[in-house]
Protein backbone atom coordinates (compact mmCIF):
# COMPACT_ATOMS: atom_id res chain seq x y z
CA UNK A 1 0.00 0.00 0.00
CA UNK A 2 1.36 3.37 -0.94
CA UNK A 3 0.10 6.61 0.46
CA UNK A 4 0.13 10.01 -1.12
CA UNK A 5 0.73 13.18 0.78
CA UNK A 6 -2.31 15.39 0.97
CA UNK A 7 -2.84 18.95 2.03
CA UNK A 8 -5.47 20.79 3.98
CA UNK A 9 -8.92 20.10 2.47
CA UNK A 10 -9.80 23.65 1.62
CA UNK A 11 -9.51 23.90 -2.12
CA UNK A 12 -12.37 23.71 -4.56
CA UNK A 13 -12.01 23.27 -8.30
CA UNK A 14 -15.39 24.69 -9.15
CA UNK A 15 -13.68 27.33 -11.18
CA UNK A 16 -10.48 27.05 -13.13
CA UNK A 17 -9.53 30.66 -13.10
CA UNK A 18 -6.12 29.89 -11.68
CA UNK A 19 -3.50 27.32 -12.29
CA UNK A 20 -4.39 24.32 -10.20
CA UNK A 21 -3.38 20.73 -9.83
CA UNK A 22 -5.58 17.71 -10.24
CA UNK A 23 -5.13 13.98 -10.11
CA UNK A 24 -5.66 12.16 -13.38
CA UNK A 25 -7.31 8.80 -12.82
CA UNK A 26 -7.42 6.06 -15.44
CA UNK A 27 -10.70 4.45 -14.54
CA UNK A 28 -10.99 2.25 -17.61
CA UNK A 29 -9.10 1.57 -20.80
CA UNK A 30 -10.94 4.39 -22.49
CA UNK A 31 -11.64 6.88 -19.79
CA UNK A 32 -9.57 9.35 -17.81
CA UNK A 33 -11.14 11.64 -15.27
CA UNK A 34 -9.70 14.12 -12.82
CA UNK A 35 -10.38 15.02 -9.24
CA UNK A 36 -9.04 17.79 -7.06
CA UNK A 37 -5.63 17.20 -5.63
CA UNK A 38 -7.11 17.41 -2.15
CA UNK A 39 -9.64 14.68 -2.69
CA UNK A 40 -7.36 11.68 -2.77
CA UNK A 41 -6.72 10.29 0.65
CA UNK A 42 -4.42 7.52 -0.45
CA UNK A 43 -3.91 4.74 -2.98
CA UNK A 44 -4.33 1.17 -1.88
CA UNK A 45 -4.33 -2.34 -3.26
CA UNK A 46 -7.40 -4.09 -1.95
CA UNK A 47 -9.01 -7.45 -2.55
CA UNK A 48 -11.85 -7.97 -0.11
CA UNK A 49 -15.05 -6.67 -1.60
CA UNK A 50 -18.62 -7.44 -0.68
CA UNK A 51 -21.19 -7.59 -3.44
CA UNK A 52 -24.40 -5.63 -2.95
CA UNK A 53 -27.12 -7.24 -5.09
CA UNK A 54 -29.19 -5.19 -7.51
CA UNK A 55 -26.74 -2.34 -7.59
CA UNK A 56 -25.42 -0.80 -10.80
CA UNK A 57 -22.63 -2.88 -12.36
CA UNK A 58 -20.14 -0.08 -11.88
CA UNK A 59 -21.00 0.24 -8.21
CA UNK A 60 -22.05 -3.11 -6.87
CA UNK A 61 -19.45 -3.67 -4.20
CA UNK A 62 -18.44 -2.16 -0.91
CA UNK A 63 -15.32 -2.50 1.17
CA UNK A 64 -14.81 -2.15 4.88
CA UNK A 65 -12.20 0.43 5.78
CA UNK A 66 -11.52 1.86 9.22
CA UNK A 67 -14.87 0.68 10.49
CA UNK A 68 -16.68 2.36 7.63
CA UNK A 69 -18.57 1.02 4.65
CA UNK A 70 -17.11 2.45 1.47
CA UNK A 71 -18.84 2.10 -1.90
CA UNK A 72 -16.41 0.98 -4.59
CA UNK A 73 -16.86 2.46 -8.05
CA UNK A 74 -15.46 0.34 -10.86
CA UNK A 75 -15.86 1.78 -14.33
CA UNK A 76 -14.02 -1.06 -15.99
CA UNK A 77 -17.43 -2.72 -15.77
CA UNK A 78 -19.18 -0.71 -18.41
CA UNK A 79 -22.34 -2.02 -19.93
CA UNK A 80 -20.61 -3.88 -22.70
CA UNK A 81 -17.58 -5.00 -20.80
CA UNK A 82 -16.74 -8.65 -20.48
CA UNK A 83 -15.96 -7.85 -16.86
CA UNK A 84 -19.57 -6.98 -16.19
CA UNK A 85 -20.45 -10.18 -14.38
CA UNK A 86 -17.04 -10.94 -13.08
CA UNK A 87 -16.85 -11.83 -9.42
CA UNK A 88 -14.09 -9.67 -8.13
CA UNK A 89 -13.56 -11.19 -4.73
CA UNK A 90 -10.56 -13.13 -5.94
CA UNK A 91 -8.79 -10.14 -7.39
CA UNK A 92 -6.76 -7.36 -5.96
CA UNK A 93 -7.46 -3.92 -7.36
CA UNK A 94 -5.75 -0.60 -7.11
CA UNK A 95 -8.10 1.86 -5.51
CA UNK A 96 -8.10 5.57 -4.97
CA UNK A 97 -9.61 6.16 -1.54
CA UNK A 98 -11.20 9.55 -1.99
CA UNK A 99 -12.51 12.18 0.35
CA UNK A 100 -15.99 13.44 -0.36
CA UNK A 101 -16.51 16.95 0.91
CA UNK A 102 -20.06 18.16 1.17
CA UNK A 103 -19.12 21.80 1.35
CA UNK A 104 -20.32 22.60 4.83
CA UNK A 105 -17.01 22.16 6.61
CA UNK A 106 -18.37 19.28 8.61
CA UNK A 107 -15.70 16.85 7.68
CA UNK A 108 -15.86 14.40 4.87
CA UNK A 109 -16.87 10.92 3.94
CA UNK A 110 -14.87 8.40 2.00
CA UNK A 111 -15.38 6.32 -1.08
CA UNK A 112 -13.24 4.21 -3.38
CA UNK A 113 -12.66 4.35 -7.13
CA UNK A 114 -10.90 1.56 -8.99
CA UNK A 115 -7.99 2.85 -11.03
CA UNK A 116 -5.85 1.02 -13.53
CA UNK A 117 -2.63 2.90 -12.95
CA UNK A 118 -1.18 5.07 -10.19
CA UNK A 119 -2.69 8.54 -10.51
CA UNK A 120 -0.71 11.39 -12.00
CA UNK A 121 -0.80 14.84 -10.46
CA UNK A 122 -1.09 17.29 -13.33
CA UNK A 123 -0.67 21.01 -13.10
CA UNK A 124 -3.35 22.61 -15.23
CA UNK A 125 -2.83 25.99 -16.77
CA UNK A 126 -5.52 28.47 -17.67
CA UNK A 127 -5.27 27.79 -21.36
CA UNK A 128 -6.14 24.14 -20.80
CA UNK A 129 -9.53 25.08 -19.41
CA UNK A 130 -12.57 23.97 -21.43
CA UNK A 131 -16.30 24.34 -21.15
CA UNK A 132 -18.25 21.58 -19.46
CA UNK A 133 -20.27 21.31 -22.64
CA UNK A 134 -17.11 20.08 -24.33
CA UNK A 135 -17.37 16.90 -22.29
CA UNK A 136 -18.86 14.31 -24.55
CA UNK A 137 -19.79 11.63 -22.09
CA UNK A 138 -21.86 10.65 -19.09
CA UNK A 139 -19.57 12.72 -16.92
CA UNK A 140 -20.85 16.07 -18.11
CA UNK A 141 -23.67 16.28 -15.61
CA UNK A 142 -21.51 15.53 -12.61
CA UNK A 143 -18.44 17.53 -13.54
CA UNK A 144 -17.27 20.73 -11.95
CA UNK A 145 -15.08 21.72 -14.85
CA UNK A 146 -13.09 20.34 -17.75
CA UNK A 147 -9.66 20.75 -19.25
CA UNK A 148 -7.73 19.42 -22.18
CA UNK A 149 -4.89 16.96 -21.81
CA UNK A 150 -3.42 16.14 -25.17
CA UNK A 151 -6.28 15.22 -27.47
CA UNK A 152 -8.82 14.46 -24.79
CA UNK A 153 -11.17 16.56 -22.72
CA UNK A 154 -10.86 15.51 -19.11
CA UNK A 155 -13.82 16.07 -16.80
CA UNK A 156 -13.12 17.21 -13.25
CA UNK A 157 -15.56 15.16 -11.24
CA UNK A 158 -17.86 16.37 -8.52
CA UNK A 159 -17.40 13.53 -6.06
CA UNK A 160 -20.35 14.66 -4.00
CA UNK A 161 -22.58 14.15 -7.03
CA UNK A 162 -20.82 10.98 -8.15
CA UNK A 163 -21.21 9.22 -4.81
CA UNK A 164 -24.58 10.87 -4.28
CA UNK A 165 -26.10 8.88 -7.13
CA UNK A 166 -26.33 11.57 -9.79
CA UNK A 167 -24.35 9.71 -12.43
CA UNK A 168 -26.39 8.26 -15.28
CA UNK A 169 -23.73 5.96 -16.66
Amino acid at each position, binding site marked *: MSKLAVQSPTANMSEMEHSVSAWLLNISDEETVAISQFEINHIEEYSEFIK*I*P*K*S*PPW*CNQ*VMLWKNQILPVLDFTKSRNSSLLNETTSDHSFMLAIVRIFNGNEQGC*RYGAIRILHPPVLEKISNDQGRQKNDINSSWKDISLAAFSAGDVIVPVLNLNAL*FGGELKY
Partner: protein
Amino acid sequence: MSSFPGDKKEVISNLQSATIMAIEIDSQLYYLPQVDLITFENTSQLGEALKDGKSVASVEFAGKYIPIYCLSKDFDLLNYIPANRKVCVITGYKERRFAILCDKIKKLSYSEIKFEPVPLCMESHTTPLSSLFLYRKDTGETELGMLLRSQTLFDYLQSDLQFEAA
Protein backbone atom coordinates in the same frame (compact mmCIF):
# COMPACT_ATOMS: atom_id res chain seq x y z
CA MET B 1 -20.19 6.07 10.19
CA SER B 2 -22.37 8.54 8.45
CA SER B 3 -24.66 8.48 5.49
CA PHE B 4 -23.80 9.68 2.04
CA PRO B 5 -24.85 13.06 0.72
CA GLY B 6 -28.47 13.30 -0.18
CA ASP B 7 -29.47 10.06 1.49
CA LYS B 8 -33.20 10.17 1.80
CA LYS B 9 -34.38 6.66 2.39
CA GLU B 10 -35.70 6.21 5.86
CA VAL B 11 -33.88 3.67 7.94
CA ILE B 12 -34.71 2.29 11.28
CA SER B 13 -33.33 4.15 14.22
CA ASN B 14 -29.84 3.52 15.32
CA LEU B 15 -30.38 1.45 18.37
CA GLN B 16 -28.32 0.63 21.37
CA SER B 17 -29.50 -2.90 20.83
CA ALA B 18 -31.56 -4.51 18.13
CA THR B 19 -33.19 -7.87 17.73
CA ILE B 20 -33.05 -8.88 14.13
CA MET B 21 -33.72 -12.04 12.23
CA ALA B 22 -30.94 -13.52 10.14
CA ILE B 23 -32.40 -14.93 6.95
CA GLU B 24 -30.24 -17.27 4.95
CA ILE B 25 -30.73 -17.62 1.21
CA ASP B 26 -28.25 -19.85 -0.61
CA SER B 27 -25.59 -19.23 2.05
CA GLN B 28 -26.05 -15.46 1.87
CA LEU B 29 -27.29 -13.82 5.05
CA TYR B 30 -29.74 -10.96 5.08
CA TYR B 31 -31.36 -9.40 8.08
CA LEU B 32 -34.90 -8.37 8.92
CA PRO B 33 -35.82 -6.44 12.06
CA GLN B 34 -37.93 -8.56 14.36
CA VAL B 35 -40.58 -5.84 14.35
CA ASP B 36 -41.10 -6.55 10.63
CA LEU B 37 -41.60 -10.27 11.13
CA ILE B 38 -45.14 -11.49 11.64
CA THR B 39 -44.35 -15.17 11.88
CA PHE B 40 -42.53 -17.95 10.11
CA GLU B 41 -43.34 -21.54 9.42
CA ASN B 42 -42.03 -24.48 7.50
CA THR B 43 -42.89 -25.00 3.87
CA SER B 44 -44.66 -28.32 4.19
CA GLN B 45 -48.16 -26.97 3.58
CA LEU B 46 -47.99 -24.44 0.79
CA GLY B 47 -50.88 -23.64 -1.48
CA GLU B 48 -50.87 -22.89 -5.18
CA ALA B 49 -49.42 -19.71 -6.54
CA LEU B 50 -51.79 -16.78 -6.75
CA LYS B 51 -52.60 -15.32 -10.13
CA ASP B 52 -50.34 -12.32 -9.67
CA GLY B 53 -47.63 -13.51 -12.02
CA LYS B 54 -44.94 -13.29 -9.38
CA SER B 55 -45.77 -15.58 -6.50
CA VAL B 56 -44.53 -19.13 -6.47
CA ALA B 57 -46.98 -20.43 -3.89
CA SER B 58 -49.39 -19.21 -1.24
CA VAL B 59 -50.02 -19.81 2.41
CA GLU B 60 -53.11 -19.42 4.51
CA PHE B 61 -52.79 -16.69 7.07
CA ALA B 62 -55.59 -15.15 9.13
CA GLY B 63 -58.19 -16.76 6.94
CA LYS B 64 -56.76 -15.60 3.61
CA TYR B 65 -54.27 -16.96 1.15
CA ILE B 66 -51.31 -14.63 0.85
CA PRO B 67 -48.63 -14.75 -1.87
CA ILE B 68 -45.27 -16.37 -1.31
CA TYR B 69 -42.33 -15.09 -3.32
CA CYS B 70 -39.11 -16.93 -3.91
CA LEU B 71 -35.94 -14.93 -4.40
CA SER B 72 -32.42 -15.96 -5.27
CA LYS B 73 -29.57 -14.72 -3.12
CA ASP B 74 -29.21 -11.86 -5.61
CA PHE B 75 -32.92 -11.04 -5.31
CA ASP B 76 -33.87 -12.44 -8.67
CA LEU B 77 -37.46 -13.60 -8.71
CA LEU B 78 -37.71 -17.36 -9.10
CA ASN B 79 -40.69 -19.27 -10.46
CA TYR B 80 -39.70 -22.46 -8.70
CA ILE B 81 -38.83 -23.43 -5.15
CA PRO B 82 -35.28 -24.71 -4.66
CA ALA B 83 -35.06 -27.74 -2.40
CA ASN B 84 -33.24 -25.84 0.31
CA ARG B 85 -36.01 -23.27 0.84
CA LYS B 86 -37.47 -24.68 4.03
CA VAL B 87 -38.83 -21.62 5.79
CA CYS B 88 -41.69 -19.33 4.89
CA VAL B 89 -41.23 -15.85 6.39
CA ILE B 90 -44.49 -13.94 6.70
CA THR B 91 -44.25 -10.21 6.80
CA GLY B 92 -46.37 -7.30 5.72
CA TYR B 93 -46.54 -3.66 4.84
CA LYS B 94 -49.60 -1.72 5.91
CA GLU B 95 -52.55 -4.03 5.27
CA ARG B 96 -50.75 -6.23 2.76
CA ARG B 97 -49.40 -9.56 3.95
CA PHE B 98 -46.92 -11.56 1.96
CA ALA B 99 -44.17 -14.11 2.47
CA ILE B 100 -40.73 -14.89 1.18
CA LEU B 101 -38.90 -18.18 1.32
CA CYS B 102 -35.51 -18.74 2.88
CA ASP B 103 -33.33 -21.66 3.84
CA LYS B 104 -32.89 -20.87 7.54
CA ILE B 105 -33.90 -18.18 9.96
CA LYS B 106 -32.30 -17.28 13.25
CA LYS B 107 -32.95 -14.63 15.87
CA LEU B 108 -29.97 -12.53 16.82
CA SER B 109 -29.36 -9.69 19.21
CA TYR B 110 -26.67 -7.15 18.60
CA SER B 111 -25.66 -4.18 20.63
CA GLU B 112 -24.71 -0.77 19.33
CA ILE B 113 -25.58 -1.39 15.74
CA LYS B 114 -25.54 1.67 13.60
CA PHE B 115 -27.53 1.35 10.42
CA GLU B 116 -26.85 3.48 7.41
CA PRO B 117 -28.65 3.72 4.09
CA VAL B 118 -27.41 1.93 1.03
CA PRO B 119 -25.20 4.57 -0.62
CA LEU B 120 -27.16 6.50 -3.21
CA CYS B 121 -24.65 5.66 -5.92
CA MET B 122 -25.69 2.02 -5.49
CA GLU B 123 -29.39 2.70 -5.83
CA SER B 124 -29.87 3.11 -9.56
CA HIS B 125 -31.89 -0.06 -9.66
CA THR B 126 -34.68 -1.15 -7.43
CA THR B 127 -33.45 -3.04 -4.43
CA PRO B 128 -35.15 -4.60 -1.43
CA LEU B 129 -32.22 -3.56 0.74
CA SER B 130 -33.02 -0.88 3.24
CA SER B 131 -29.69 -0.29 4.88
CA LEU B 132 -26.28 -1.64 5.66
CA PHE B 133 -24.64 -2.06 9.01
CA LEU B 134 -21.50 -3.30 10.62
CA TYR B 135 -21.47 -5.77 13.44
CA ARG B 136 -18.84 -7.59 15.38
CA LYS B 137 -18.79 -11.34 15.26
CA ASP B 138 -17.95 -13.50 18.27
CA THR B 139 -14.52 -13.94 16.74
CA GLY B 140 -13.97 -10.18 16.94
CA GLU B 141 -14.11 -9.70 13.20
CA THR B 142 -16.23 -6.91 11.80
CA GLU B 143 -18.76 -7.99 9.22
CA LEU B 144 -21.17 -6.23 6.93
CA GLY B 145 -24.87 -6.84 7.38
CA MET B 146 -27.54 -6.10 4.78
CA LEU B 147 -30.91 -5.15 6.18
CA LEU B 148 -34.26 -5.79 4.52
CA ARG B 149 -37.43 -4.06 5.63
CA SER B 150 -40.96 -5.21 4.98
CA GLN B 151 -41.63 -1.95 3.13
CA THR B 152 -38.60 -2.21 0.87
CA LEU B 153 -39.38 -5.85 0.17
CA PHE B 154 -42.97 -4.96 -0.63
CA ASP B 155 -41.94 -2.12 -2.94
CA TYR B 156 -39.41 -4.37 -4.64
CA LEU B 157 -41.93 -7.15 -5.20
CA GLN B 158 -44.45 -4.66 -6.56
CA SER B 159 -41.95 -3.32 -9.07
CA ASP B 160 -41.63 -4.51 -12.63
CA LEU B 161 -40.03 -7.84 -11.77
CA GLN B 162 -39.85 -10.75 -14.16
CA PHE B 163 -39.17 -14.36 -13.33
CA GLU B 164 -35.60 -15.41 -13.85
CA ALA B 165 -35.19 -18.40 -16.12
CA ALA B 166 -34.68 -21.61 -14.18
